[in-house]
């Protein structure tokens, strides 16, 4: 009941000033209104979007019957899953490498590692298009091998993010624990498995969620690497939006929004709100 709290407003309690509350409220409205309207009207029994004509699930049924849409969703989830696993391994190794060793050209390696994050998506997409055309990467492989080009592209832009998150976690590691383990007779591998890995775990979870979301979210890079048989969900939605707006898109989008909320809830459950905030 903060609204009816009558204690005087302290100088730093900006959040209790009316205009500040109004500003935050308006911003949240701006961010959420389009998404909420989209979600609500995906249940609307009308082709036109504005007028409510009663609850229906028929567009969900239609979306589920749309084989190419379902296939695109399965492709997207497969790619995201594979990309997450590989990015996690590569990112964790890269983080340990940069944290633990001194080696020649370390600054250059660090800089190069952050490039896939900085380089505009369109340039990365173009680079993969040319690269896979140049090395004549086979395009007629059976599923799921035909997704390999997209997966490789996704791993390339996901693993530097994982490395960044894991490395910031490693900064808080106490090296003495490692030395103690070695003094007590643990091998290099045992030390890694039993001491370093448990410490890295929160970073790995955050990195995995980040990689999964980034991969699932990506349109531009996939747009350049996908072929006619390897459509992902964003590419499919793009062509649906571009060429014919159907209410099925609302239903499919709602499913994806809900998936995002579920993933965020999982992250919350695993880490708490604060930890997630700090990884971004």
């Amino acid at each position, binding site marked *: 009941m903060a609204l009816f709290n009558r204690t005087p407003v302290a100088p730093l309690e900006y959040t209790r000033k009316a205009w500040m509350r109004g500003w935050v409220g308006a911003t949240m409205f701006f961010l959420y209104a389009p*998404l909420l309207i989209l979600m609500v009207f995906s249940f609307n029994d009308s082709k036109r979007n504005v007028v409510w004509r009663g609850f229906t699930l028929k567009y969900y049924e239609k979306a589920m019957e749309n084989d190419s849409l379902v296939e695109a969703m399965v492709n997207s989830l497969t790619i995201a899953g594979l990309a997450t696993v590989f990015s996690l391994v590569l990112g964790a190794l890269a983080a340990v490498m940069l944290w633990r*060793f001194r080696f020649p050209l370390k600054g250059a390696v660090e800089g190069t590692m952050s490039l896939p994050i900085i380089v505009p998506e*369109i340039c990365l997409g173009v680079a993969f298009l040319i690269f896979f055309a140049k090395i004549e990467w086979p395009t007629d492989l059976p599923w799921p091998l035909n997704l390999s080009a997209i997966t490789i592209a996704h791993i*390339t832009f996901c693993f530097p993010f994982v490395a960044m998150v894991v490395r910031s976690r490693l*900064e808080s590691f106490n090296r003495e624990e490692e030395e103690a383990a070695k003094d007590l007779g643990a091998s290099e591998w045992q030390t890694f498995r039993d001491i370093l890995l448990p410490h890295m775990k929160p970073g790995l979870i955050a990195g995995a969620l980040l990689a999964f979301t980034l991969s699932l979210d990506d349109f*531009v890079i996939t747009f350049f690497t996908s072929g006619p048989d390897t459509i992902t969900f964003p590419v499919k939605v793009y062509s649906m939006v571009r060429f014919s707006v159907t209410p099925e898109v609302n239903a499919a989008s709602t499913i994806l929004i809900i998936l995002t909320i579920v993933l965020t809830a999982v992250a919350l459950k695993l880490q708490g709100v604060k930890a997630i*905030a700090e990884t971004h």
Partner: protein
Amino acid sequence: MAGLVQDWKAHKRPFAAIAGAPLFWLLLFFLVPMAIVWLYSFGENAGPADIAISGTLDNYKRATEWLYLSIFLKSLAVAALVTLICLIIGFPVAMAITFATPKWRPWLLLGIMLPFWTNLLVRTYALMVLMGTNGYANMGLGALWDGTSWLRVAVGMQPLEAWTPVQLLYNNFAVVLGLVYVHLPFMVLPLYAALDRLDKSLIEASLDLGAGHLRTLMKIVVPLAGPGILAGVMITLIPALGAYLTPDLMGGTESQMIANVIERQFKRANDWPFGAALSFLLIYAMFILIALQSMRRDKGREAH
């Protein structure tokens, strides 16, 4: 943080085991593709599916023609405008989150982060539905129009003519609005991170000593949070400059940005060398922006 960095020479085997895979990946699937694009930018079309790397600079020469230069400058202007709007909207929000009660803060942060995690295409599409000629934005404007018309009748003036839905999409306005919508969380999160690190007693001291809120903001908060604000600006400016999806879906023919021109070279126009040159010009622009940022940051450090 027992800073015990090992030298790779003393631990060659663990180093190879750890560094091998990520370095290999980075080389093969990032540096090599980028190098090929770079080489292509000095090439020319030798046949329908054949590109000869002849070392020509024609692609770059063509990129500096006014047609392409103007699109480049326009993209920069649009990205700068979007960043400015995001900063104006985002700064008070970041302030509010920083000074929120511990109970509220995580939820406000989550409120900003959830859209950040939501699919970009879905968010753009949601905004398009809202802004379409049958959408709520038009209905709201229509209601306003009718209200004005009714007021005019009430005070004895001629009523306005009937409301016709306006085209809110497919123009520059839609592109700027769409980019602000998409990039706002990018701005708020680093701003919050910077403001959160601020020593709040300094703000209190400034207020106690008689400075107003605005003066405190300009003299204390902004200089101290400067690097964070700069980081927020860069994190918004760089993706906005390279934006493809929003101008493609929400823009009209004259609101295309540089990324759309690049895409066209690879799909419809089929002029890969020219597209490669444009890509690298965009990357160079990013590098210049980042270099400017780190120069400012170093200067700031010297001053303290």
